[in-house]
């Protein structure tokens, strides 16, 4: 499974890329691989105020629907609308195709997440 350096990871296999006061959030390679071909993505609305661990999107393959949880709280400032027409972009490159961009509420919540090294170890134990 591909893991990208410099991102934060959650145990639910979401990733967070911090950009100043903002962050991009998506799902990790492990999550897209386990779901299989993604055929539908449900996105939140811009300006939604979300807390850490709120379900903010749904990613669905033919077989199953998976909720995606926000690893840190924040306000949605942008959603990746390209996923509405081409949900399979997440399969193609789960790290380039973020799902939402948020304004971070509390940066200290990042401390609870894993670094790429820690996430690699976590994945090795999951297998």
């Amino acid at each position, binding site marked *: 499974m591909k893991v990208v350096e410099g991102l934060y990871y959650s145990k639910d296999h979401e990733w967070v890329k911090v950009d100043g006061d903002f962050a991009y959030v998506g799902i990790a390679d492990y999550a897209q691989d386990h779901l*299989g*071909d993604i*055929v*539908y993505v*449900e996105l939140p609305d811009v300006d939604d105020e979300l807390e850490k661990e709120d*379900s903010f999107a*749904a990613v*669905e*393959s*033919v*077989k199953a*629907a998976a*909720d995606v949880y926000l690893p840190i709280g924040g306000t949605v400032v942008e959603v990746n609308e390209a996923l*509405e027409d081409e949900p399979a972009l997440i399969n193609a490159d789960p790290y380039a195709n973020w799902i939402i961009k948020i304004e971070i509420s509390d940066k200290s919540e990042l401390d609870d997440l894993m670094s790429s090294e820690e996430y690699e170890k976590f994945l090795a134990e999951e297998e």
Partner: protein
Amino acid sequence: MSAKKTPLYDEHVKLGGNVVDYAGWALPVQYEGLIPEHEAVRNAVGMFDVSHMGEITVKGKEALAFLDYLLTNDITTLVDNQILYTMMCYPDGGVVDDLLVYRYNSEYFYLVVNAANCDKDFEWIVNQKGDYDVEIENVSDGVGQVAIQGPDAEKTLQKLTETDLSQIKYYYFQDEVMVDGVKCMVSRTGYTGEDGFEVYTDLEGVVKVWNSVLEAGKEYGIKPAGLGCRDTLRFEASLPLYGNEISRDITPLEGGLRFFVKFKKESDFIGKEGLQKQLDAGLERKLAGLELLGRGIPREGYEVQKDGEKIGHITTGYMSPTLKKGIANALLKPEFTEIDTEVDVIIRNKPVKAKVIKRSFLKNK
């Protein structure tokens, strides 16, 4: 308790199948992916391991009369080597199982039942035997089965046998067909809505047949196909799944399978009274097709509402790989099952618009 392995387990692992526990059997959900496998069956050919299915033989002087009493469809219409789809019901009309009946002759029938129901079915059948002069045997453990399905299924299988497969008509079978040297029983049946065959043999033979068919089908782009697309294919073809569209609590009348209940056949049969009573009282719910008009995917178990009131639930639903839209079977109050009726499917606590459509989904292609 660990899942039982079919004789093809090692082949699934070799092919990279994503093996899960399904009804107590270790079987692959998919190999390469659900969508490519689904498309291979719709457009070319795919092969499924269905060795988990149950097989029960009913033999004896009164086999025909016994099955006519046990089953809802009219078994007396069958000729030798013909197959019938039927329900087996409880007296109240609930379904014990849906199954295929193969007639070898009037004193020898071969029943193919759902894996998850096989033990229950066997017990039920034995308990109904009474004074009928029949012998009932569960032969499941000795049978391996593959389903070769798709428009190129006949061409693929024909390469491996001298038997002229074009002579086996839809819902007929032939015994002692040699498939690459393995003695098989071959029927023109399936669970995908495509042309195809189901091939029955012993546990050793089925491994050879599996590998020979994969080789023979290469030129047509054959793919091994998993349980994932088995369900999407049967759903698109409007074929019911026990536990979803029919069950102990969902009768064949509610599940849209009235055609397979022959109220007018000569003999009495188990379930007739219960089903007749339901028919006379009027159905309280009925299976309908739905197409989602808003965004999302209608899935099994989702509630269906009209003006905020619950009117039923979805029994099977998918983003159809063939039609590329969200479609579903829903068990609804009958007054909401007219074509074009607008209803709401509740997806993650939000109502999404849908309309009632005909259940012959593939004809809307």
